[in-house]
């Protein structure tokens, strides 16, 4: 007898497929949320001999012994199962397995997350309940299967990070591939349970956008989520045929934000998309939805950003401007602390002669544009690194400082003279029409700073024309031309802000030392 423990729809789908790959009878241990989501739970008897519903949060309100007793009572003797598959090990059942020292097969939370445990961990840190438990979950290996009792790990190898090396304990499990391999009858039984819509037609050359429910997860506010997708559409997708499939828990009113988009509102695992669309989209896109990992390889083009973009998205205008500068002066870009994925994706939208993006510092003979941002996140040593870089900058190179943290990372009182070789580039944002209800963008000017010892290069860089209409965001982005007086004022404002910033840093430091 095999036991499957599931918490989410994805887990349930995976367990249903797995049950068809084993001859042994099986028992499904599912969270109460599954029961709430699927009133048709009785249909699962086609797949499992028994379905047991449990309180997945039980452990967080009871002692370890009570937790064990609870599961013994619900499931019976866990040792009688020849195999235990555990999805959602960060819930109560994972603790039981650990406390009873039972061998089990650790199954990744979602495709690709085995090699990216920090994604789930960061979400749990913000959860009102799990924020008190995530450290213990981490200790028992609930996020990455590092528990000594996780004898094998089930994951989609193709969906893992580039650095992932599968070892002998890995069981490759690609939901879409497995679904394809099933008989049509069995596949249909699985689909019928989830009851997705069938025969959806989409226009040719469509982009299918898979959303994430960021505001529901408290990763960002409602307005920020709307703005993020407006920016993504304007900068990266800008396509005529946009299909949006919201995450099942994402209630955002996309049809009102993107009037021309087709919205697939029905809730079903995105893994079913290859089976229910009459014609397939040309491109699948997401910001950081893990749903894309399973879909890779099944579509012609895949567009994805990363979880860092969830906090970096307001800086898209600045990154765009920085890449336009690099394009204008014809140099490749080296990212120092900056969001490389964002830079790469933006670069791809620039048309011809796009700069190459890398994080490797070139040899001293190669000129490039250093794109610098967020270097003081892990401490003030980043500031020293930037100052040293600017000192030693090759002739013909320049540095563009995004300054997303307002930390003026190149500023040190002793090296104030660096400002002599810096020019600001101011980005002006104008509302395209009187602000509509779904206008979430800020209209405040943004400034990036360009450094180069080469005055001609500096002049060329700061005169880069930036002109981009962002219809869904509702703004026109342009660089604000500065005469020499305006430029001096802007520089002085920057120096003042940087000085105040440093002063505040020393005041806080002194307070802490006291």
């Amino acid at each position: 007898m095999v036991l499957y423990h599931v918490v989410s729809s994805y887990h349930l789908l995976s367990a249903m497929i797995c049950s068809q790959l084993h001859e042994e009878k099986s028992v499904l241990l599912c969270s109460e949320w599954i029961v709430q989501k699927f009133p048709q739970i009785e249909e699962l008897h086609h797949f499992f001999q028994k379905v047991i519903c449990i309180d997945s949060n039980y452990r967080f309100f009871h002692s370890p012994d009570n937790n064990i007793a609870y599961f013994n009572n619900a499931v019976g003797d866990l040792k009688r199962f020849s195999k235990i598959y555990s999805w959602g090990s960060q819930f109560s059942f994972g603790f039981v397995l650990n406390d009873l020292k039972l061998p089990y097969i650790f199954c990744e939370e979602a495709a690709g997350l085995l090699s990216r445990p920090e994604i789930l961990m960061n979400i749990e840190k913000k959860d009102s309940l799990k924020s008190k438990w995530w450290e213990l979950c981490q200790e028992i290996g609930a996020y990455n299967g590092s528990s000594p009792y996780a004898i094998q790990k089930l994951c989609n190898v193709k969906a893992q990070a580039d650095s992932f090396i599968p070892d002998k304990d890995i069981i490759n499990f690609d939901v879409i591939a497995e679904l394809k391999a099933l008989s049509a009858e069995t596949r249909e039984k699985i689909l019928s349970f989830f009851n997705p819509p069938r025969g959806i037609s989409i226009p040719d050359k469509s982009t299918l956008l898979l959303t994430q429910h960021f505001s529901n997860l408290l990763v960002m506010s409602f307005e920020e989520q709307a703005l993020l997708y407006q920016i993504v559409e304007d900068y990266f997708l800008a396509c005529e045929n946009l299909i949006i499939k919201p995450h099942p828990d994402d209630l955002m009113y996309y049809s009102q934000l993107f009037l021309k988009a087709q919205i697939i509102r029905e809730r079903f695992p995105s893994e079913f998309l290859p089976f229910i669309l009459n014609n397939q989209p040309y491109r699948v896109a997401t910001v950081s939805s893990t749903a894309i990992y399973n879909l890779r390889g099944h579509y012609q083009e895949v567009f994805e950003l990363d979880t860092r973009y969830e906090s970096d998205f307001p800086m898209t205008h600045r990154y765009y401007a920085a890449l336009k500068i690099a394009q204008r002066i014809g140099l490749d870009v080296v990212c120092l602390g900056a969001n490389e994925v964002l830079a790469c994706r933006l670069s791809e939208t620039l048309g011809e002669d796009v700069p190459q993006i890398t994080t490797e510092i070139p040899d001293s003979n190669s000129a490039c544009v250093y794109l610098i941002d967020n270097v003081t996140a892990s401490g003030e040593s980043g500031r020293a690194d930037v100052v040293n870089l600017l000192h030693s900058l090759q002739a013909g190179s320049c540095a563009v400082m995004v300054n997303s943290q307002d930390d003026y990372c190149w500023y040190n009182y002793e090296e104030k003279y660096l400002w002599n070789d810096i020019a600001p580039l101011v980005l002006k944002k104008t509302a395209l029409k009187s602000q509509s209800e779904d206008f979430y963008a800020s209209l405040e000017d943004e400034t990036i700073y360009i450094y180069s010892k080469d005055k001609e290069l500096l002049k060329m860089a700061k005169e880069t024309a930036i002109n981009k209409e962002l219809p869904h965001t509702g703004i026109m982005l342009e660089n604000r031309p500065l005469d020499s007086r305006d430029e001096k004022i802007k520089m002085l404002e920057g120096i003042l802000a940087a000085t105040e910033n440093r002063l505040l840093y020393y005041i806080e430091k002194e307070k802490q030392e006291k």
Partner: protein
Amino acid sequence: MGLIDMRGQIKDKLYYYFAEKNWGVRREYGPYVDAHREEHAEHPWKHRWMLVKLNWHYRVLRRDNMMISKPPEGKVTEKKQRLPYLEGSESSLSNRSSPIHLVKNRLLSFDVISFDIFDTLILRPFSKPTDLFMIVGKRLNKVEFYRIRTDAERRAREEAMQKKGTREITIYDIYRIIEQRTGIPAELGLQTEFETELDYCFANPYMKKVYRLLQEQGKTIVITSDMYLPKEMMEKLLHKNGFSGYDKLYVSCDYGCSKSNGSLYQYVKNDYPGKTIIHVGDNMNSDIKCAAAAGVESEHYRNCHEIGNPYRADGMSAFVESSYSGIVNTYLHNSDKVFSPLYEYGFIYGGLYVLGFCNWIHKRVKQEGIDKILFLSRDGYIYQKVFNMMFDDVPNEYFLWSRIANTKYTVKKNREDFLRRIVYYRALAPFKITAKSLLQSINLLGLIPYLKEYQLNEKTLLIPETVKLFDQLFIEHWDEVCEAFEPEKDYIRNYIRDKVGNASKVAVIDVGWLGSGPVGLKYLIEEELQLNCQVYCMQAAARPPIHTDIAPELMDSTIEPYIFSEMFNRNHFDVHANTNKGQNNIFFEFFSQATYPSYGGMNADGSFIFDYPEVENYKAIQEIQSGIIDFCSQYIHFFHKDFFALCISGYDAYCPYRMIIRDLSFIKKYFSDYTFARNVSGDTENQRIETIRELLDQAGV
């Protein structure tokens, strides 16, 4: 083959019936469990007993008051003075879930969602809906209209009860009576009232999101309201505020029955047989209890004014109290957003005064035919910003000035002021400065060679015992003191000329208190520079250290205060001067700081001198100013069509601040680390500044 654990299903059903079905139990039990999670796990029977008690309280005894939670602070009693919310952000009291969570966790499972209109989907910027009638009366040019209108409604309802057995009426009924009693044509009256409603009703941003989220999910939406405006008018109102796509609109005056007697819900149920229906509304009786009695589920959206009114300033005039409270309550309490305490300090306690002050300045400027306004730094920063939000018809400049600059550059006329501020006040300050520091702070290092003559040296501390010696030094070298400032004064003169320009009349604006800044500039412009320009000195309030200091200037309006002086709004003056050990100036000035240092004058080469940057305060200042600007934006946005609404008296303007200083717990909690350079431009060697905590401790507050 067993399937679902039936015990789980029964448990769910019991939980729903006892813990969720009743609005009152649901309101208290869930939050109680959330707040006592561990106790819930370890002592479940204690919580079950709580559930029994709650059911007894709400279902059997049919009480409305909360059983577990304490009533809100600040509840007005006859004897107890009203206090603001002192624990932190008042907006946290709303305790609402996000629109997404409300939809997902509560509304989505229903087939039909019914919304109440007023104070749910639609809000008005008044603490009471009937206060709109003051504006209607003004537009109809009819005094006493508020009373006439409310009276007419009462009469109409009584008539309807007698004739039809129901109190339901329409707006036509009301204006028929008004026409009879006043001669105002009914059509004109009701059109005016309806247009006023259209002008002032606005979509509740929170409910708008909920509404749109439900639309996106394809839910059936209906609207159910007890109102005398008929359906066509309500449709217009809803449409104007972006509420469209609803399935049906039920208005009590069209159906002859209401939610408050339960019958209107029957129409809804009849139109959607077999469908699950939930009604969302703010009124505990008509939206919640009566819905329940009619067998309709409900979700209580706590009324913004019920949350906020206990903390609103009292004692204001009728209209301003309503409009001010309406703006604050609807803005802070409509959603799940929690604003920072500092932002709220600006929004709730500072916005009305800055708005009123700017409007008053404009009025005075127009009355006197003043050509230009000079807003003195740093208080003038926020005044100028708000002024330019409101008006674009008066040229104005931001004028760098300060007490120190005034003292230095009017030194020929104001010797006593110089000696008092530069010597005496600094001797009393907690941080003692040296002679060198003192002279350096006012660019008088040239006097160092004379120190020996007065038994002083560079390191001598300026303390009460040495004041006389320092006084003597300055007095006996007065010509040198004046001469020392001359090079700077050349630049100052040019600066003043440049700022005044060709104006023949300028208004100089400052916060207060003695008026030395504006009066000093008046002297420079009119007497020293003789620019042929008349200077009007206007300030927020007048509170000199000693009553006699500026009495003649107040009497002949040389100094004009907006809020109070010894001569008008005397009770505000007394409160301000005599409570909190006279420290109220400081807290008041939190509203009008700026994120750069105080101006110290000019160097001999024309470069500007600034004091120490209080960078620790900048973030706080920005938050407070954001609050002030947002309040002003909101008020202007809503009331710009009715000019009188902007004419806020100085008396009313001060009331919110008067309330927050009744109890300094809020200020102590959020401003303790706020730095305060009392010894402005004093301690050049050590650059020490005090915090508000130290200041209050010294003052014994």
